[in-house]
């Protein structure tokens, strides 16, 4: 399957990535190979096998619904913080 520049740009947008124009041709070739590899499943016979998202299909035990200690000071992980708040670029005009 070939990918045109518009499709590549759409994929990058979905992945929240910018494409360096100098690398776009190489990336397009690599992505075409990867999509071709993935496409091998389309011809496989799967009969009526229902899809499975996870190997553990049984009920997983739930934790007791009790309050637990909260990891504090998480804002220190952010690139920019003010007191206990994460600073982000303006999102509301």
């Amino acid at each position, binding site marked *: 399957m070939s990918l045109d520049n518009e499709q590549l740009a759409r994929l990058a947008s979905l992945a929240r*990535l910018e494409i360096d124009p100098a690398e776009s041709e190489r990336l397009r070739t690599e992505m075409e190979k990867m999509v071709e590899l993935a496409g091998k*499943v389309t011809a496989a016979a799967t009969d009526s096998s229902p899809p499975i998202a996870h190997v553990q299909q049984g009920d997983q035990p739930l934790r007791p619904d009790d309050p637990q200690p909260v990891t504090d000071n*998480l804002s220190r992980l952010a690139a920019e913080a003010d007191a206990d708040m994460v600073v982000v670029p303006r999102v509301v005009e």
Partner: protein
Amino acid sequence: MNSSPLAALAGQIAAGESSPEKAAADACAAIDRAAVLNAFIQITEKRAATDIERAEQLIDSGNSPLGGVPVAVKDIICTLETRTTCASKLLAEFTSPYEATVTGLLAKAGAVVVGKTNLDEFAMGTTGEHSAFGATRNPWDRQRVPGGSSSGSAAAVAARLVVAALGTDTGGSVRMPAAYCGICGIKPTYGMVSRRGLVAYGSSLDQAGVFASAAADLRIVLAAIAGHDPGDSTSRPDAGLAETVLPENLNGIRIGVVEQLFGQGVSDEVAGPVRAAIGQMQQLGASIVKLEIESIRHAIPAYYIIACAEAASNLSRFDGIRYGSRASGEDIEQVIMRSRSQGFGAEVKRRIMLGSFVLCHGYIDAYYRKAQQLRRKLIDEFASAFAQCDLIAAPAAPTTAPRLGEFGDDPVRMYGQDVCTVPANLAGLPALSIPCGFAAGLPVGLQLIGAKMSDALLLDCAQVYQGKTDFHLQVPPEYQ
């Protein structure tokens, strides 16, 4: 020829012939001497000091299964008092606010974490070359890759810098480097070991694993880290390594040989030693059952669809806002896109984009849903196989260690190296790799795959095999 370097070192410490502090210092000196391997991203002095103090108390109280021995941890597993970089520029300065369950259990058993090891960025790679901190090199031949993604952990154990190390295995990232480096590596049953604190790549596939030079040591470390964890919703309620009495032979064990695992690019130089090892296991009393698992031929594309789809979702959290480095931009969208573009390496970007492709409208049914159907079919076929055999023996990797740069800019050729390992991840099965020979001076790995929760059986068989062979005792000449 069974050996346990871990138990031997723990014994020396217990006898007062060494100490956790001396063992850690010796390990750090060895790591320093082997710096050319680029196996470590950081030496964790502060963390080691904390662990040493705890280990000494545990040894004094007679309750230290890991006895103060130095270990290494793949730098995708969160540890306190260290950075956790995932070998990514984006997380180069990231320090986790909490400890992974597996490393917490290591410390409680008396291990000393002396360093965090190199890896393919976010565990995405087969060779160990895709790290923001540079490629790791194979101790058997430094012009060759050690295998990935747990490249540094494997190289560290192979060069005898530490007696054991933790890795993670999403599609073969413990077994592949174990095979290339001539050591032992186990990927436990999915849910056997907690994933809490492992930075997620493919959540339905990821599992922490163990490297050591001998199967006996895999058992000691796995016993320490296995168990149910309420902090991981995918942890099995029955998790825990079963205690067994080590048999003297393999009488009564039925070994399945699946021809599909010897096809698809498996070289003769690998197939030969693996078949010879199966023959030796037969001489030790095992019987051989020939089997077909048809869906294995679709395992590579199915795996890359599922793993990349999960990666695209899991790595969406790395936006430059809450964690890691942040790029400048005029609005929040630009900040996020630039942070990710500047922070992620090429292989991670490719996989996120493939994941976005297979999940997007118009393709999700043809790709992602189809891969999920194939996964179901593979699980069912493995279940039928294990009605006829106790374990499956196969190569761990189709070739010996490739040269650095051998796959160039062709990621799909690199993905082909995963052909023998991804089926066990898709089905959630335990699997291990042990050395079974050499080809042109490079190690060859024998893979044993078992039914769910048969981890102890796999270790029993590996130990019986190692009791009669000495491949696991071979050390790269420069590190003897």
